Every structure is written in structure tokens, then in C-alpha cells.
């Protein structure tokens, strides 16, 4: 079964890329709808929403094409984003929310867990290859 050369897109990475792809579409589409329908309501929150979408797009692409440095940097940005936005945003601001609001509460906290899994995955791949002759 494991005849693939190790890469960020195989094994657990196959699942990760799909989850990142879902969030890329969900976050970007959400932000575009928010900005298109009433941008004046919460321009900062909606711009952050769009930024989170872009971060997911880059992470999906980097993981799918085995670009590990880009993936690492993007996932660190993602983790910082969800921690900072989660700590500042008010959970009642549903209308102004981004996917990172309240640590991703509206998405089953997946936005909080996802970067941790991503970093662990990159670390494990690196370790596995360092151990291999």
C-alpha cells in the first residue's frame, strides 16, 4: 500500500489536503458574500475572514504539492490567526464572524485543531525522512 514516496499529500496528508480545501472554499466564499452584501457593517472582521480564506488556499496548495516550507509558514500564520482572533472576537458577533472567531466554535473547533495536526504532520514527515538512510 505504501508505495508512494513520502510527501505531504499522501496518507494522513490526503485527508489534510481535503479538509484544508473545504476550509479554503468555505472561508473564502463566506468572506466574499460578507464583503459583497454589506462590507460597511464590519470591514475589519470581513477582511480578516477573507485573509483566513487566502491562508487556507495557500496551505491547501502547499500541502498538495509537497512545498513544506511554504506549508509550515502558512500553518504557523493560521495558528497565530485562530489564537489571536479567537482571543479577541466576541462569540455573540455571529454576523461579523470569521471562521477563526471564538477559536472556530462555529466550525466545531476544527480551525483550532487543524493547524496543530498540520504542524504535527510536517514534523512527523521530517522525522521519518531524517531517520531513513
Amino acid at each position, binding site marked *: *500500500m*505504501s508505495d*508512494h514516496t513520502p510527501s505531504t499529500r*499522501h*496518507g*494522513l*496528508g*490526503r*485527508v489534510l*489536503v*481535503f*479538509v484544508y*480545501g*473545504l476550509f479554503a*472554499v*468555505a472561508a473564502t*466564499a*463566506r468572506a466574499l*458574500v460578507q464583503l*459583497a*452584501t454589506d462590507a460597511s457593517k464590519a470591514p475589519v472582521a470581513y477582511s480578516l475572514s477573507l485573509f483566513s480564506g487566502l491562508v487556507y488556499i495557500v496551505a491547501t496548495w502547499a500541502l498538495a504539492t509537497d512545498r513544506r516550507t511554504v506549508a509550515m509558514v502558512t500553518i504557523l500564520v493560521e495558528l497565530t490567526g485562530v489564537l489571536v482572533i479567537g482571543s479577541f472576537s466576541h462569540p455573540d458577533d455571529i454576523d461579523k464572524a470569521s471562521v477563526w472567531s471564538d477559536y472556530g466554535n462555529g466550525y*466545531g473547533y476544527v480551525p483550532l485543531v487543524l493547524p496543530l495536526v498540520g504542524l504535527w504532520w510536517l514534523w512527523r514527515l521530517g522525522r521519518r525522512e531524517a531517520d531513513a538512510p
Partner: protein
Amino acid sequence: MTILQIVLGAICVVVAVWLVVLIVLDRLPGDLLYGVLAVIEIGLVGQLVIGLTRVFGDHGDLNVAAYVGYLVGSLLVLPIAFVWSAGERTRSGTAVLLVGVIAVAFLFLRLQQLWSYR
């Protein structure tokens, strides 16, 4: 929630459990499972039609853009999951289908939320 969404949601739960069993046993999905996924997809087309009828009717203060976005978006999940999982015929590929089915079930809840908060 419409009856169609309840039925489809229940099918999604059954398929999710089924996929977990396949992943645990390290077995690959067969034609029957793919058939059920196709049934869910057809149901989602039905949901789109019902949803659009609602949007064109009296929909109160509904967030139309988001509602239609979810309706159309839900159609894309399973086909993409199917193609992406076919690229790796292992447990991981099966897990992609599991994530897809869970995502579709989640979208039913979001659609229901949007409709009830209108």
C-alpha cells in the same frame, strides 16, 4: 428542516459509521457504498430545487446569498471527495470520503440555521 434533509442527514450518519468501520478494518469501499453516495448526491440536487423554490417564494429576512451558497456548495463536496479519494486507494482515501459525508451533514445544519433565523 425538510423531510428530505432529515432523511439525507440520517443516510449521511449511517454512511459515516459504515466508513469508520471500513477504515478500522482496513477495507476499501465497494459499489454499494458508492451507490449510496450517489443517492445522497441526487438528494442534494433535490434539496437545491426545494431551496431555490423557497428563495423565490416568501423568504422573509433570509440571507439569500449565503443560503444559495450553501445549497450549491453542498453539491460539490461529494464529487470532489470521490475524485480526491480515488487518488489513493488506502484507508486515507476512505477517510476523505468520511470527511466529505460529515461536511455534507454539517451543511444541512447550517442551511437549517439560516432558514430558521430568517
